């Protein structure tokens, strides 16, 4: 698990994960918020359908892809968490039009 050291009182940001209520902290990326909640995997891979999660956290590996507000293939590590975001773990290859 990840442990949060900060006690500087960042605001809690509500969002939904696969339709269920969840919370992150102001300053979190989407990828960081999911990791902090214990979701080490955020998607199933496009080719083999195996679980994958964030690897580099700096926008290069593309393993942190999630669906955000209906749009798939978003890099969770390059997206700041905003209150009210609807985030879904990404099931394999993104379908056309999503």
């Amino acid at each position, binding site marked *: *698990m*990840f*442990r*949060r*050291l*900060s*006690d*500087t009182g*960042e605001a809690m940001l509500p969002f939904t994960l696969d339709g269920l209520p969840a919370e992150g*902290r102001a*300053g*979190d*990326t989407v990828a*960081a918020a999911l*990791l*902090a909640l214990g979701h*080490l*995997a*955020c998607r199933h*891979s*496009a*080719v*083999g359908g*195996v*679980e*994958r*999660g*964030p*690897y*580099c*956290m*700096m*926008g*290069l*590996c*593309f*393993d942190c892809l999630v669906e955000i507000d209906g749009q798939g*293939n978003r890099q969770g*590590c*390059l997206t*700041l968490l905003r209150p009210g975001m609807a985030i879904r773990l990404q099931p394999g290859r993104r379908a056309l039009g999503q």
Partner: protein
Amino acid sequence: MTLLQDIGALAEIYDVAIVGAGPAGMAAAVTARAQGLSVVVLDRGFAAGGQIYRGLGNSPLAGRRDLLGPDYWKGEALLDDFLGCGADALHQASVWYLDASRCLGVSQGGAARIIAPRHVILATGAMERPMPIPGWDLPGVMTAGAAQILLKTSALVASDAVLVGDGPLLWLLAAQYLAAGVPPKALITTTPRRRLAQVAGAIPGFLASPYAAKGLALLWRVRRQVRVLDGSGGVEIRQHAGRLQVRHHGGAEEIGADHVLLHQGVVPEVNLARAAGCPMVWQATSGCWAPQVDAWGNTGLTGIAVAGDGAGIRGAEAAAVAGRLAAREATRALGVITGAVRDAQSAADIRALRRLQRGRDFLDRLFAPSPSQRAGSPEAMACRCEEVTGATLRRAVAETRAAGPNQLKAYTRCGMGPCQGRLCGLTVGEVLAQHQGRSPAEVGYFRLRPPVFPLSLAEMASMPTLEEEEGRANRP
């Protein structure tokens, strides 16, 4: 610094466009502005700092400065200078195109544009070398750099973590976790045991360097408090009962962990320079590619320079110095100052660079991964995106007699995914080189083409037409 809200706020013409807002990019911007040039900094991050100074202006650990260590907070002076320098800055921006005529394609916030700056300084920095060991693609396995980013930006520490690999960053992370009161469960070093003896000749140079005292103190602190397993090759990670299990050669036991954090050094992030057509050189000691640059960062393409770790790994302080040198050279190239003025202004920086270079040779040679580590394990995923294993690569090399990386890519799809070869390119080169008995320099690299970051059709469609761009340029 003027923070641009969107891509439409970019001016038509800049004297200098800088790609990346790490130490090299920030220092280049400050220096170019001081010479009176108009400057835009295009950066993928949320704020200035790059990866080394990530989150520096808004740290959740501002109340616990000891935790990240003095080298991190040292960046504050540069950050302050940058914020006050009057450059335009566009964050969360991806530069996906650059050509020899300095047309530069950038996207941000779902829109894209092409701008044509007079001079370009690439300050794209470094990335961690791919570490293709079995299980490196499992959830819960990340790079040490990723763990550090989580610490800097969200104050998150992985409890129950095993660190694997070697190099300054891995030891620094272990020390930071210790300072946070969450010691790593174990640190498995992968540098071959005989390596220290092999590089003994470079030790005196290292001891006289600015890195020695700091590095040795760090090593001692970690070794005293963390279980360190030395020189373990053949590390494998598997998933079992919801946990990761780490096995290493020579160790009978498996170590269970929630997180495994990997690191075997950093290499220049060169995709943009390469796609732009900058001539590249193979750096044999550190086993990576870098753009060919002169002392001022000039590449083989007129008006395109590379500064900082993107031109070869020398660390954050040297990156800032290189950024200043590249900015003064840009000022000279644009006719604002003479070569003699540039030289005079740069004398102290050139001396500083020489000092910072001392000891790096030792670090490069000490921590260089072995040939088998560079080629990766056959059982490991070589290309994470297209899920091509090392064994598949090797079979394809043997069966198809692929001459180079591009053919291998066509046969196996390695390097064809969204990361665009960043996490497999070096591995593919090593596998080919070792099979053919050549050096990676001779084998070459993937032919990279823009866009070097994925660009959506919507972003492309948002681009102004030629007529619109011309109309904008003709406006008084």
